[in-house]
């Protein structure tokens, strides 16, 4: 048992050293996270959409320390035979910037809504195009982001859950990963046993 504990300790130390070395390249390691680190745009601003009756709702979840500009949003039709009305957004927070003037921004999250009409009775999958733009308080901005989304019916069998949750890999792939790990484990054991000799009586 002691052997297993010691081995686990060595393993943890090895992985720790490798992890530290691989965590960040040198040019990002030099400064604290507020200085040069930044989130990928899809992590800083996550977006999802759903349909409620004749209204499409688009929700953005905004990471701490990041914000989106109210006047930079758009929700438009992408699929044929779809008409999307003028989107509505709730009042934001006023941010005064000496270089851009007074701006209305959103932090944490925001839901935009727009009425829509479909003239094809659902013959085409519904697609909308959303555009948004934001910045980090740390002093950097993301270019405008444009995405095509498939809004799902709320509560339907394919209804999309609007809330942060993690989507893990499908079980089959997880099984494959674990099996390959176990195979590597056994193989390593066999290789390490090679050349080992039982003590022979003199």
């Amino acid at each position, binding site marked *: 048992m002691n*052997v*297993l504990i*010691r*081995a*686990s300790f*060595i*393993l943890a130390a*090895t*992985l720790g050293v490798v992890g530290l070395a691989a965590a960040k*390249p040198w*040019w990002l390691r*030099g*400064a*604290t996270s*507020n*200085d*040069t680190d930044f*989130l*990928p*745009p*899809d992590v800083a*601003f*996550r*977006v*999802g959409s759903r349909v409620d009756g004749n209204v499409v709702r688009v929700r953005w*979840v905004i*990471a701490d320390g990041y914000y989106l500009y109210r006047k*930079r949003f758009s929700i438009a039709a992408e699929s044929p035979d779809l008409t999307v009305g003028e989107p509505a957004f709730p009042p934001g927070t006023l941010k005064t910037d000496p270089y*851009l003037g007074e701006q209305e921004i959103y932090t944490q999250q925001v839901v935009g809504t727009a009425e829509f009409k479909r003239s094809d009775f659902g013959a085409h999958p519904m697609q909308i195009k959303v555009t948004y733009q934001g*910045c*980090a308080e*740390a*002093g*950097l*901005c*993301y*270019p*405008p*982001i*444009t995405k*095509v*989304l*498939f809004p*799902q019916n709320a509560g339907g069998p394919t209804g*999309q859950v609007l809330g*942060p*949750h993690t*989507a*893990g890999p*499908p079980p089959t*792939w997880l099984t*494959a*990963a674990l099996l390959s*790990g176990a*195979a*590597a*484990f056994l193989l*390593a*054991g066999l290789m*390490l046993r090679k050349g080992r000799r039982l003590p022979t009586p003199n």
Partner: protein
Amino acid sequence: MHSRTWRVAAALLALVVGVWVGLRLHPHAAPPASGVRVPAGEASPPVPSDLDKPWDPDVPPRVSIPEKLPEFSLADRAGKPTPISTWQGKSLIINFWATWCAPCRREIPLLESLSRDWGTRNVQVVGVAVDYRDKVLAYANDLKIPYPILIGEQDALDAATAFGVESPVFPFTVFTDRRGQIVTLFVGELHKPQADLILSIVQNVNEDRIPLATARHNIADGLHALAPNPSS
């Protein structure tokens, strides 16, 4: 330590590596490419929802900075195609910015002063605006920005991504030595103490006082020392 311990450790390592390799081979492990386009480009391919993706705020965007200044050419303020090699032989401060970006606007007075103070020492400031041409011209003329500005939309974004930042954010500033080697790339708003630190080290490289690798480490250490203490 007992050799058996090492064998068990090796076996455990093999187990972890095996699982890791398995997960890496998993087709969903690689996130889809970002949908960032500037300033009015095409939409990204349809995606169901970012809210379905795992949230891992500890993973910064992939950055792989080239060793040498990549070649690119963009229109200048007069509309003339201008390759970046126009300033070959000079140490460059290449500032990527846009008019819609408040920190970029805040940075411009500093870049003007760097252009003034370092211009006589073979250092050239070049602005690269990733934005609509008319907006950039109006803003640059209004401010009477004294250093050269190259302007573009998708072509300027391509130039930005050539510096190895997967999803460019603005502003970011590239510092090269006189041989066109990239000494550092600074992401976010640049302030005077940081600029002075980086430029003094770049000058040491230009005068062959320190090798490039040492310069990069000195910059990293110096920026770390300048960074505000999170506990204070």
